[in-house]
């Protein structure tokens, strides 16, 4: 039996995983990263538009701070997030941006003097102050009060990932590439590492670790059309689910991005609209102001995607062989701006559509984009039910996004959560010993080997890619942007049948070494389990919140549904997950539920909301001389690793 020992095992080499590894290594721990691919190819690289953090350097960002970022994030989540986590995040986002500046990210900078920008389809001139020249600048994004998204053209994820991976290389952190974690090793409510398959040789290796961190990204590829990389199939969340001990949170919360190109499903950044781009219909009419008079194209993603779908349903879509779509118009931004700040978008249009967005309209449609759900963790990033298992980034339900994530908050989460959770991972490693019997490790390895033997031995089983395609189509058709009871119930039933069928899969390709069909066969049943968590969670949640929109229950229902869905897989033979609900306590919230200011304003109120609002007013009235930091602390104290507790400085106003 091949066994590798380490203190801190990180599964996934994207931004979140690498940042946890860096934190572990900084604390003197033996650290290693497992990745399906070279780390720099991770899906983090695909983030285009930028990272939110309230630096408040540019003239259009003045007045921004952690409070405003926090409030935007909570509203974006439709009050489904963990407000403590959103606070931790908003507080550390400026620090993460500055840290990355030190590690080499060439953030775009404020240039003093006048410049022309497009706001609400008008060209206006804004003037940057001399004293802000050379500080990190930011652009506008959806659902935000201020221009808060820091960027490098539209290749922000790329420059962030390259800087992060280079930092990890400089520290000598090993990345074991082309390795797939296929099961977690656990016993007595504690996780001890993972069983890993070498995707080149086919060898099984046990990685035994003190702390194990899942940072494998989202599960977008459960849908047949997704902006996600082909490796975003949720395997990290799935191996956590298969422990029967760890829970997945809010799996039904799936985001659809308004502007993926048709038909390829490749993303064009929200920066297109942030920089002034418009959405047009079949008549080349700008329809968003009719639906969202205040935020227009820049309401939150869930809202814009629904409005687009509504408009297509009214017959206003542009017909195409791939179904109706709408137009994204960035022509008004001008050639110079597009070639500098939206050049990846321009390249994508050129190669995949054969058009130039400087003079052509871009065909777009809402497309699966982001997984708010994932491995349920505490604010420290640890699973509450499986000690020693941590999760971070899109793979996790740390829960700063609730039921809808704001654009620019995902790459931000990866690096901020990586900083914070990385410290807690190190704390765990320094406080615990690895006390596992090697026989237990062998048991898990033999179990996985047995499954592979069976797949290779079965002469004529179900074909993995056919089951996968069927699953993807079910989610696409029945668990999409708009949902309702009957199709959701059908989806759960059909997926259960597929799961049963998947137990009779076989491989035509018989190699034990590199074998793409075997990889697929090992992943498909796990993907179907995740799909069941999504579908059943959506079926049972009889309200609409954020990206989860039920046509038969169109209102947000705080009275009955202000809760986080927790899915577990109790017995291996089950054909459905077990769902439980964890209430979100209004009485501890800094910001009780209210109106988002965009989208459907209807909500069924919870009796605690009025009570808590009254309490908050009282607390505020009792401290007339307090500054905003003191008031915040009185309303909802939150903890952070000591090194990240400091107050953020801003240009012109210091630490006010």
């Amino acid at each position: 039996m091949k066994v590798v020992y380490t203190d801190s095992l990180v599964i996934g080499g994207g931004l979140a995983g690498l940042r946890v590894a860096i934190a572990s290594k900084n604390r003197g721990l033996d650290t290693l990263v497992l990745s399906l691919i070279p780390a720099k190819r991770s899906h983090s690289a695909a983030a285009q538009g930028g990272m939110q953090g309230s630096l408040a350097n540019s003239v259009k960002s003045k007045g921004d701070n952690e409070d405003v970022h926090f409030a935007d994030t909570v509203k974006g989540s439709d009050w489904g997030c963990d407000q403590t986590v959103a606070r931790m995040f908003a507080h550390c986002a400026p620090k993460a941006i500055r840290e990355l500046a030190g590690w080499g990210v060439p953030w775009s900078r404020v240039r003093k003097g006048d410049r022309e920008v497009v706001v609400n389809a008008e060209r206006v001139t804004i003037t940057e102050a001399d004293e802000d020249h050379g500080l990190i600048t930011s652009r506008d994004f959806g659902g935000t009060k201020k221009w808060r998204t820091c960027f490098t053209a539209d290749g922000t994820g790329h420059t962030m990932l390259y800087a992060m991976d280079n930092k990890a290389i400089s520290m000598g952190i090993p990345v074991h590439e082309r390795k797939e974690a296929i099961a977690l090793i656990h016993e007595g409510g504690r996780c001890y590492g993972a069983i890993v398959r070498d995707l080149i040789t086919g060898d099984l290796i046990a990685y035994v670790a003190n702390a194990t961190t899942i940072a494998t990204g989202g599960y977008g590829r459960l849908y047949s059309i997704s902006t996600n990389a082909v490796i975003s199939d949720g395997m990290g969340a799935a191996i956590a689910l298969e422990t029967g001990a760890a829970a997945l949170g809010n799996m039904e919360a799936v985001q659809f991005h308004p502007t993926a190109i048709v038909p390829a499903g490749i993303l064009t950044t929200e920066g297109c609209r942030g920089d002034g781009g418009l959405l047009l219909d079949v008549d080349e009419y700008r329809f968003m102001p009719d639906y969202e008079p205040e935020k227009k194209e820049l309401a939150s993603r869930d809202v814009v995607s629904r409005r687009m779908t509504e408009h297509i349903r009214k017959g206003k879509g542009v017909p195409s062989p791939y179904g109706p779509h709408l137009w994204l118009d960035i022509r008004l931004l001008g050639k110079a701006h597009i070639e500098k700040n939206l050049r990846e978008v321009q390249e994508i249009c050129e190669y995949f559509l054969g058009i130039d967005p400087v003079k052509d309209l871009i065909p777009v449609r809402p497309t699966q984009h982001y997984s708010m759900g994932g491995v349920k963790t505490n604010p420290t990033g640890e699973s509450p039910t499986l000690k020693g298992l941590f999760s971070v980034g899109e793979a996790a339900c740390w829960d700063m996004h609730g039921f809808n994530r704001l654009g620019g908050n995902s790459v931000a989460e990866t690096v901020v959560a990586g900083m914070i959770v990385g410290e807690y991972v190190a704390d765990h490693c320094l406080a615990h010993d690895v006390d596992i019997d090697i026989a237990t490790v062998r048991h898990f390895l033999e179990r996985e080997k047995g499954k592979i033997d069976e797949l290779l031995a079965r002469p004529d089983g179900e074909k993995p890619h056919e089951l996968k395609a069927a699953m993807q189509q079910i989610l696409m058709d029945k668990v999409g942007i708009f949902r309702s009871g009957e199709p959701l119930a059908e989806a759960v039933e059909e997926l259960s049948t597929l799961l049963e069928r998947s137990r009779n899969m076989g491989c035509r390709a018989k190699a034990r070494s590199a074998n793409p069909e075997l990889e697929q066969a090992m992943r498909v049943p796990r993907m179907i389990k995740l799909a069941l968590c999504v579908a059943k969670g959506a079926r049972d949640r009889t309200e609409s919140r954020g990206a989860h929109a039920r046509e038969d229950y169109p209102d947000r229902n705080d009275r009955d549904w202000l809760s986080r869905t927790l899915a577990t897989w109790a017995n291996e033979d089950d054909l459905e997950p077990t769902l439980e609900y964890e209430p979100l306590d209004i009485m501890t919230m800094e910001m009780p539920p209210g109106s988002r200011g965009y989208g459907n304003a209807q909500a069924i109120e919870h009796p605690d909301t009025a009570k808590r609002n009254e309490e908050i007013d009282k607390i505020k009235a009792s401290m007339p001389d307090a500054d905003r930091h003191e008031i915040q602390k009185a309303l909802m104290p939150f903890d952070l690793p000591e090194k990240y507790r400091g107050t953020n400085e801003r240009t012109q106003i210091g630490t006010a």
Partner: protein
Amino acid sequence: MSEAKMNVSTTAGSGQTTGRTLKINILRFNPQEPDSKPEMVTYKVPEAPNMTIFIALNYIRENLEPSLQFDFVCRAGICGSCGMVINGRPDLACRTLTSKFFLGEITLMPLPAFELIGDLSVNTGKFMRAVSERVGSWIHDEEEKQKDLDALEERMDPDTADEIYELDRCIECGCCISACGTMRMREQFLGARGFMSVARFHADPRDKRSDEDWYEVLGDDDGVFGCMSLMGCEDTCPKDLPHQTKIAYLRRRMVDT
């Protein structure tokens, strides 16, 4: 129209064909299997509208040859996983449309100069990490470690930031390395990816290395003086990075050092 119906129509296009049958020749070899020998195998694929080589290869894997190895991640031309030799030229397979080959015949081979994993899959990761370690592709600044993350960031000239970004766009696909004549003759040659990385950190005021430091990395025949100026890198770079200009620039700097 209901959402369900709308979603069905989104995939309706995938059943369409252009009426053309593509002939795709692939160099197949799995070095992990003792019986495997390199051979060219031809697959017939019904062409669909807007078909890319990514789609065509997945068609082959699902319908004709489940063991076929190839690498895609983003399938949007930004992650650099899918470099391969397409009709004699290194390029990104994911963003290459099959319609551009008017004879309907496409020959695919793995990128040369890298360790072969199997079929069209090569180990660029190992190579690129070694280049990073050799160049020291990170900010070298002794004071960086003490920086206070609560304080205002250091200022940078906006043009300098833009210039660094231009040089930071490399996606490590390996096309430049595969297209390089010198690389075939000198196993230890740094190659265009390495030079671009040097140019990127050389342009960055946050990196405190001097030209003398860079000379240690670059100043011999395995470095910038080994380049024969065939410029295969410039011709094949999918991101249109300015290889020619930067190699010339580094060479002059090193001559002066």
